[in-house]
């Protein structure tokens, strides 16, 4: 029961959605639509689940006074504060009927001046790591890595004016060797070919994995309990 029902659900939902791709007539066309709608709503429940997990983990940390527990309070305050501002639409110019992220509402302010700088700065840290990785980790260890680094070099140079300055002497029939042109060629030709081969391979992988999931051959996602 604990395994059969989920397998059956996966099979029916998957098969109906595939049918819906080819049968536009009711009820199949509508099934496709309805299931997508259900999926969207369940996705929101997944956010709730994430929130629930978060509260559980951090409350436990505070209760047991684990390492760095005061910071868990920061997490909880941030979470509950943002949640209240959003759910109750505090300070919304249009009251409870207004758009949740209306300009001037507390929710929007928190978003603009807490969420945005935090998220953007986190990603900006990566620029520094790219720097240190290029100094310490990216080595021309073998032929493959060397080709990779040379291609990366041409692209990087081609996206700056220096590439043009370096090779502007190559004119006429040799102009295709100018670094910006070379960079565009790499993007449009070998890069495209490689991406396409990867894409076709992954598509086949996804197709066969989806088929195995629908047919219940692959069931790792259900875990191994109650075997």
């Amino acid at each position, binding site marked *: 029961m604990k395994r059969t029902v989920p397998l059956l659900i996966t*099979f029916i939902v998957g*098969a109906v959605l595939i*049918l819906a*791709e*080819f*049968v*536009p*007539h*009711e009820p199949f*066309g509508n099934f496709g639509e309805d299931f997508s709608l259900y999926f969207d709503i369940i996705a929101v429940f997944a956010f709730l689940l*994430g929130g629930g*997990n*978060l509260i559980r*983990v951090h409350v436990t940390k505070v209760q047991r006074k684990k390492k760095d527990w005061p910071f868990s309070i920061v997490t909880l305050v941030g979470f509950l504060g943002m949640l209240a501002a959003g759910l109750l639409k505090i300070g919304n110019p249009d009251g409870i009927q207004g758009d949740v992220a209306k300009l001037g509402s507390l929710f929007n302010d928190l978003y603009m001046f807490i969420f945005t700088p935090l998220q953007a700065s*986190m*990603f900006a*840290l*990566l620029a520094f*790591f*790219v720097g*240190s*990785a290029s100094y*310490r*980790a*990216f*080595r021309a260890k073998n032929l*493959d*890595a060397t080709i*990779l*680094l040379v291609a*990366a070099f041409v692209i990087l140079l081609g996206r700056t004016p220096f590439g043009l300055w370096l090779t502007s002497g190559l004119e006429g029939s040799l102009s295709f060797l100018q670094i910006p042109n070379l960079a565009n060629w790499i993007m449009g030709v070998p890069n495209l070919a490689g*991406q396409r081969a*990867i894409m*076709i*391979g*992954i598509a*086949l*992988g*996804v*197709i*066969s*994995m989806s*088929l*195995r999931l629908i*047919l*219940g*051959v*692959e069931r*790792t*996602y259900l*875990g*191994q*309990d109650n075997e």
Partner: protein
Amino acid sequence: MELLRSRIIIGITLLSMVLMFGSALAQDADKRDVLDSTAVRVGTFKKPVNLPIPAQLDVVEDSEGDAGSSITVSWLPSPDDGAGKNNVIEYQILRSESQDGEYVIVGSASRGMTQFQDATTTDGVTYFYYVRTISKDGGANSQISAGIQSSPQWFNTKDLDTFIIGLIICAAVIYFIYHAQKGKKFFLRQIAGLEAVDEAIGRATEMGRSILFIPGINDMDDVQTVAGITILGRVAKTIAEYDTKINMPVSRSIVMTTARETIKQAYVAAGRPDAYSDDMVHYLTDEQFGYVAAVDGIMVREKPATCFYLGAFFAESLIMAETGNSIGAIQIAGTAMPAQLPFFVAACDYTLIGEELFAASAYLSGEPKQLGSLKGQDVGKIIAMIVILGLCGLYTVASISDSVSLLDFADKIKGLFSAS
């Protein structure tokens, strides 16, 4: 019992697909009748002074293979389109529910276009259409079409090609899974990096240091995470035998439960269930950067001898691979995220590229159904290669011999392999 059920499922799937195919053919025949009886072809108009020569209505019909609510209007372009003094600006499509009723604009198409899909119709209502050709001097109308209704179809005939190709690939996968389950052995090539797995674990054992295993940051509904966990099963078997330490921080709670069960099974199979501990796998946080920061800390403090990164990775791939490199660990990575592959290839010792990750999981799991489906995927690749080879050949010959009929033929074949 198990086998019987999968056979029934396979049977039902194949049967339903055959039925759909049949209905598609029937639908196609139907379609042709409709086209002949309701399609409208209209004669030329006299050209008024200063106005553009109007476009002629070509075919007005119910849009093919949809859920209704749509009529397709197509026309032959005005001779003034793209040439002549009265250069056409656009075409407007007008509609009414009675032949001499009031016509309203339902849409427009830029010059050069010859088709418009009116997706705002109600099924069962009769509509009349005409096309107005607009130039800077004004508009000229085509003749009015005959009455037409939209209706839903039972099969999307436009997708017949997708359907058949999908059927072949799915059938190949099912066929090979079935035969693999019956015990047939298939050849599978070596995958670079896989041989290194045991060596890497051995090295960690000798040095008395731990192994770090990262299954990506997506949940169990991502195919790549599933592949990572399958590989974990094989890795866990070896560490259970060698008694190597493993540390596996994860960012999803379901991944945590699944990984714990997987490692536990390996220890039970090795006959040392008491050596297993739940602490081997621990949940950190769902948040991407919080997770990376914590993993980074673990790496610097514990200095694992070997790091595995197998699953779905995003921006964090770079940070992990760089830190791993700086502590001198052997790194084995694998992901189907094309944007992250370069960093792994440049900074790790071995990298499983894209589909190789899935292949590796099949390879290491040794499960026949997994190996069989790999063979089925190869059938897909053969189809792709043959079609590409054939089409490129046709186009090349057509281009060298400058033959228009050959080019048309090639275009027709190419049209069979088209997404829309």
